[in-house]
């Protein structure tokens, strides 16, 4: 499929790369009710492969086999692009968190703990402290597990309204309340005089635009920016309110939990992913960072007929004005033509003969049931990472920069470690083509490098710098 690759370098034919969140929602601080906390996994859905192909016809099988071979090539070729597409937001989030930690002292001041971590770490003996932090971590993890299971149960029994309400309330909280606090602290740090009216206007605008972008439609870049910002805010809250040892323990346990929850057959996240796959629905847009297409909140309420109609009508109009090589086809919420540009459709027609591109035939070729066009196809273009991943990566790096004696060296080391872990995870995703947890590898690397750099490298580099030796 050389034509395909020439025209749509970003499109991995038939490859769905999906990152699903852990859908664990838990509450943030003492006064609030909700907190969003997601781990992520990534899933790869091979459209042409027979598992999802429900219409095995001969010509389709041929197309399928061709596709499978070329999938491999394209996978590895464009895997690098996807890696970069994820590096940038993860880096941005970490940069924001580190910059805030370094400048705004509020987030490093101990102002109490959350109710989820009731045991204090200011104890007399080390043993007591260890015990307390283990208990704290255990409580937190059980809260997370309970919330995840609750979410999966709600999803299974189609209580979409409840889930949506939950998500909306938590993003409201993040966008308004936490950013208000953040803004206040930044102003305090830089001694900027400000009046309430201006602040109210700013926060109001920020929050409303954020809600619209995340839950409805908006420019892709803006949505990505908002998701990064709320992940950073969430991470800052964690850094502030989690005591030392508890935080590290939680990070470690959460990556284990992520691994278990995504890969075990009865794990809640895996069940969530599979249920979503069965129903051919998208997962909640507010919990996933998507690197290319924007999402529509098209859950089961959406009328399949309306989708088909809209997709047919908009197919010809949307892509005329877009350059073929445009990687981010974001402006159009009417990307309902299934994410295929005109060029691709022509190529496809040339290749397998003109087929009337009804949703049914497209479904046959892609192996998707027809009512899933609009919700499944946008995912084919990019890589998705759950927001929980962003949050925990940033927590690790933020904690490293806040509390490390090696300071910037440690921060830098953790940063590189996390990025390399992300690379490896994406590589595994390319190989295994199913939902994968993004936390374990990166967090393990990050933790190892943090403790190693802080305790081993730091004294070494100090001595070297003191004598001005260079290695």
């Amino acid at each position, binding site marked *: 499929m*050389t034509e395909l690759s020439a025209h749509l370098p970003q499109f991995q034919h038939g490859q769905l790369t999906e990152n699903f969140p852990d859908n664990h929602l838990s509450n943030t601080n003492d006064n609030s009710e909700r907190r969003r906390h997601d781990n992520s996994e990534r899933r790869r859905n091979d459209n042409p492969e027979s598992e999802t192909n429900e219409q095995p016809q001969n010509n389709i099988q041929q197309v399928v086999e061709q596709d499978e071979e070329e999938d491999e*090539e394209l996978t*590895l070729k464009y895997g690098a692009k996807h890696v970069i597409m994820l590096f940038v937001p993860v880096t941005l989030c970490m940069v924001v968190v580190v910059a805030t930690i370094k400048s705004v002292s509020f987030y490093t001041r101990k102002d109490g703990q959350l109710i989820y971590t009731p045991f204090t770490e200011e104890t007399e003996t080390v043993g007591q402290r260890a015990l307390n932090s283990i208990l704290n971590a255990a409580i937190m993890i059980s809260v997370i597990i309970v919330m995840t299971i609750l979410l999966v149960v709600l999803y299974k029994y189609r209580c979409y309204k409840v889930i949506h309400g939950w998500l909306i309330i938590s993003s409201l909280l993040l966008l308004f309340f936490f950013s208000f606090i953040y803004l206040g602290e930044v102003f305090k740090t830089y001694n900027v005089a400000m009046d309430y009216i201006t602040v109210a206007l700013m926060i109001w605008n920020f929050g409303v635009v954020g809600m619209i972008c995340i839950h409805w439609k908006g420019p892709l870049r803006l949505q990505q920016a908002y998701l990064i910002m709320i992940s950073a805010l969430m991470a800052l809250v964690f850094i502030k309110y989690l005591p030392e040892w508890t935080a590290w323990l939680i990070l470690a346990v959460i990556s284990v939990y992520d691994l278990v929850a995504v890969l075990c057959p009865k794990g809640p996240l895996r069940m969530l992913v599979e249920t979503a796959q069965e129903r051919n629905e998208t997962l909640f847009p507010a919990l996933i960072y998507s690197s290319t297409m924007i999402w529509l909140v098209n859950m089961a309420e959406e009328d399949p007929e309306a989708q088909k109609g809209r997709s047919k009508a908009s197919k010809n109009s949307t892509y005329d004005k877009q350059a073929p090589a445009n990687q981010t086809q974001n402006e159009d919420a009417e990307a309902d033509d299934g994410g295929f540009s005109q060029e691709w459709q022509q190529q496809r027609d040339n290749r397998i003969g003109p087929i009337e591109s009804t949703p049914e035939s497209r479904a046959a070729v892609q192996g998707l049931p027809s009512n899933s066009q609009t919700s499944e196809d946008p995912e084919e273009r990019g890589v998705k990472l759950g927001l929980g991943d962003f949050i925990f990566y940033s927590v690790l790096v933020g904690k490293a920069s806040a509390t490390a004696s090696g300071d910037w060296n440690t921060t830098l080391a953790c940063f*590189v470690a996390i990025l390399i872990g992300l690379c490896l995870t994406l590589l595994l995703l390319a190989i295994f083509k199913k939902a994968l947890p993004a936390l374990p590898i990166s967090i393990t690397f990050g933790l190892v*490098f943090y403790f190693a750099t802080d305790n081993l490298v730091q004294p070494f580099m100090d001595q070297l710098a003191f004598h001005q030796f*260079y290695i």
Partner: protein
Amino acid sequence: AFFWLVSLLLSSLIWFIAVKASDPQDEPLQKGLLIFGVMFSVLLQEAFRFLYYKLLRKAIEGLVALSEDGCSPISIQQMAYVAGVGFGLMSGAFSMINLLADAIGPGTVGIHGDSQLYFLTSAFMTMVLIFLHTFWGILFFHGCEHRRWWEITAVVVMHLAVSGSTFCNPLYVGSLVPSYLLMATAAVWAYLLSGGSAQNLRRFLLCKS
């Protein structure tokens, strides 16, 4: 960058163990241990460069096997350059970043009788090391590609020499001057190996097509 970091980790582990096993009050011993640590670290870095070369070789073979026209989208020279830059940047970042952070804050350089040029020389030394790592990357990979062991040993010896010259600090003329000379040598060598020539250079500088 990651590989450099791992090598740094391992070498500081060794040094740390050595320090913990020795007498902290003995100044010359500590300095000796530090020197030993530096040399060991240099050797480890080069070893990791070699490991990285092996990894990239495998990756290129994979890419060639999968590509449609039998050649990989990125050549080994490009990879050599990138590897060198990665090593250099990581090494530079680790050397400089704490200095930079401290430099933002208040203070006087060399108030206890140390050299007042500390920041400047650190900056120059870091810069020369970053360049050197880049060139060494190219030389090293070229040597590995064409099985010219003398190139590889030359790189290792150069690295040891540069690190060793820093032991003369704060006698900066002993460290900066040789390092820059070595860098110029390495630059010319790498340029020639990458296919450059005096003609190319002239054409480039005079903007001829």
